[in-house]
C-alpha cells in the first residue's frame, strides 16, 4: 500500500492506495498541510480494486476505509483522486461523533462564521472559494463541523471541489497554478478540479469561529432574497446532516441551539459577482 498521512482541522487521516500515482497527486494537493498530532492518524480512508484483477486489467477504484457503504459503484481509475476525496468524506460523514456535521461551506471574518448550506450546484463551494480570496478565511467546503461541546464552527479546510463552469471561473481569479489539482473530466459529478485553500486557511485551521449567519445560495437565477423561518432552518440543517441522528439527544440540542440563535436567509444570484455582493450586504447587516 502507498500511503499518506495528513491532518485537516481535527481529523487526522491515513490514506492508502495500491497504486502510487493517486497518492502522489494527493500529496501535491495537500502539500503544506500538517502531519497528524503525535504522528497518529485515527481515521483510515483507502481506495482499492473492487476485484483483484481490476488492479491491473482495466483498473477500477472502489471507495473504502474504516467506514464504508455497501453497493457503492466503483469508479474509473482516471478518477482515483476523486475516489480518495470521496473516501475521506465518507469517513467523516459516517464516523464523526465529536462534531455535528452540517452539509455546507463556510468562511470566517472577525471570528464570525458565515455558513452556506446547499445541494450540489447551489454554488456554495464557488462562493466560499472566491470569498476565501478576498478578505475572508475559508473554513470548509463540504462539511461544517459544529463542536458538540462549545457550539463553535471548527475549520475543516479540505481541498475545494470545483465543478463544471466554476473551474474556469476560479482559474481566472487565482494566479497560482500549484494550488489546483489535475483536471478530471467525465466524472460522475461532471468536470472536476480540486483547489487547495490558501495559506491562511491552512495556517489557521485550529482557530474556531462563532456561527453568525446562515445563507442558502441558489446559483443561476435572477437576484432575489427571502427570509428562512426557524422551523425550516432546523429541517434543512437536519436533512443535510449525516450524523445528526447518530448523535442522539445532544445532537438535537446542538442543532436546535443553532437554528434558534443564528439568523438565516436564502438568496438567488445569476453570477458570482452579484452573489458576492448579496453576501456582503447580508453580512454588513448581520455585523460580520
Amino acid at each position, binding site marked *: *500500500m502507498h500511503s499518506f498521512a495528513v491532518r485537516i482541522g481535527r481529523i*487526522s487521516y*491515513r490514506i*492508502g492506495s495500491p497504486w502510487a500515482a493517486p497518492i502522489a497527486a494527493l500529496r501535491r494537493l495537500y502539500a503544506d498541510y500538517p502531519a*497528524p*498530532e*503525535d*504522528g*497518529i*492518524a*485515527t481515521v*483510515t480512508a*483507502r481506495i*482499492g480494486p473492487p476485484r483483484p484483477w481490476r488492479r491491473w486489467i482495466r483498473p477500477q477504484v472502489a471507495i*473504502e*476505509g*474504516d*467506514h464504508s457503504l455497501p453497493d457503492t459503484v466503483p469508479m474509473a481509475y482516471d478518477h482515483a483522486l476523486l475516489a480518495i476525496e470521496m473516501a475521506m468524506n465518507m469517513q467523516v460523514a459516517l*464516523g464523526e*461523533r*465529536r462534531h455535528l456535521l452540517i452539509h455546507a461551506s463556510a468562511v470566517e471574518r472577525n471570528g464570525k462564521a458565515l455558513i452556506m448550506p446547499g445541494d450540489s450546484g447551489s454554488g456554495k463551494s464557488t462562493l466560499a472559494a472566491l470569498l476565501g480570496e478576498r478578505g475572508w478565511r475559508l473554513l470548509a467546503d463540504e462539511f461544517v463541523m459544529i463542536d458538540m461541546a462549545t457550539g463553535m464552527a471548527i475549520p475543516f479546510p479540505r481541498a475545494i471541489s470545483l465543478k463544471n463552469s466554476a473551474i474556469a471561473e476560479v482559474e481566472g481569479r487565482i494566479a497560482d497554478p500549484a494550488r489546483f489539482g489535475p483536471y478530471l473530466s467525465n466524472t460522475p459529478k461532471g468536470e472536476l478540479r480540486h483547489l487547495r485553500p490558501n495559506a491562511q486557511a491552512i495556517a489557521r485551521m485550529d482557530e474556531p469561529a462563532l456561527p453568525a449567519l446562515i445563507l442558502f445560495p441558489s446559483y443561476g437565477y435572477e437576484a432575489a432574497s427571502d427570509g428562512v423561518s426557524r422551523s425550516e432552518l432546523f429541517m434543512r440543517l437536519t436533512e443535510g446532516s449525516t450524523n445528526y441522528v*447518530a*448523535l*442522539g439527544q445532544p445532537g438535537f440540542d446542538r442543532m436546535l441551539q443553532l437554528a434558534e440563535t443564528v439568523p438565516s436567509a436564502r438568496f438567488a444570484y445569476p453570477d458570482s459577482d452579484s452573489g458576492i455582493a448579496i453576501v456582503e450586504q447580508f453580512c454588513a447587516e448581520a455585523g460580520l
Partner: protein
Amino acid sequence: MKDARALATALADPISTLTFGADDWTSLLAIARAERLDGSLAYRLADLPLPAPIVRTLEDARAQAEFGRTQALWEVEMARRTIAPLGIAPILLKGSAFAFAGLPAGVGRLVGDLDILVPRDRLDDVEAALLMAGFDWAKDDAYSQRYYRRWMHELPPLVHRDRGSMIDVHHTILPPTARRTPDAAALIADSIEIAPGLRILSPADMIVHAATHLFADGDLAGGLRNLWDIDRLLRLFAATPDFWLQLDTRARRHEMLEPVALALRLADRLFATPVEPRLAGHDRIRDTLFIRRMLARDGWGRPTRPASRLGFYIRSHGMRMPPLMLAKHLWTKARAQ
C-alpha cells in the same frame, strides 16, 4: 500489523498497547472498526495513559456504543409491548440480552438486530402482532418467504417501517436442516426472567448459543466478535460452582458438545480465557485453521486470506443443510441476482 492478532491481544491484555507506536495505533483502530470491536476495545482501554488522539478516539467510540445501547434497549421495550399482550415472554438473544441484562459481554458491544426466541407454536401469533405493530418483511420474494418458513430456525427478517430497526424471531437456534438438533423446548424451559415479560437464556445455554452462532452463521464473519462474547461470558459464569458441569450437560443435550469444545479452545488460544480443560479437549490441528480465518485482516482493515474465507463460507452452509439441498439453494440464489 499483518493480521488481527494485536487486536485480540489488546482486548485480552490492554497493557500490551502501552508499547504501541503511532502506526500500530492507526492499524489497531482500522482493524477494530473492521471487526466492529471498536466499542469493546474502547472500554477495555479506558483507564490507560494513552496518547491524546487515541484517548479522544476511544471516548467517541464509547459515546457511540452508549447511543447504540440506548437504541437497543428501546427496541427491546417496543418488542415487549407488542408481544406481552399475547401472554408470551420473548427470550432475548445475543447483544440485546447482554445489554439488557448488563452482562460484561454487552460493554461497548455493537447491537445489530433484535433477536428473540419464542415457542414454535406461537410463531404465527408473534408474527401477526409484529406486522400489526408496523413491521414489514425485509425480503418479500416468494422464494425467501417459503425458504425461511420451511427450512430456517427463524422467521424471514422483519424491518420496522418508521424506525428502520430489524427483528429476527427465532423458534430455535439452528436450522432444522442442520445435522445437530438443539432442544428448543429445553432452551425455553431453562430460561430466566430478567424483567416482567422478558427472559434470557440460562448461562450454559447462552454459551451453547454463542457457539452455534460462531460456527454456523456465515463465513465466520464477525468470528472474533462472537468469540469475544464467549470470553466475556465465560469469565463471569466460571465463578459459579458447577457451571462447567452444567455446560457439559447442556452442550450434550443440544448436540453441541464438539462446537462448544472448539469455542472453548479458540477462546483460550486467542484471549487466554479460563476454560475447563476436560470439556475443551486437546488442541486439534484444524483449530489453527479457525484461528487463521478469524485473524484474517491486514493493518488497513482489509480482509485477507480469501481461500480460507471461501472454505469457511462453504463449510457454514454445509453445516446448515445437506449437500443436494445446498446446491439447489445456492443455484436459486445465484439466478435471482
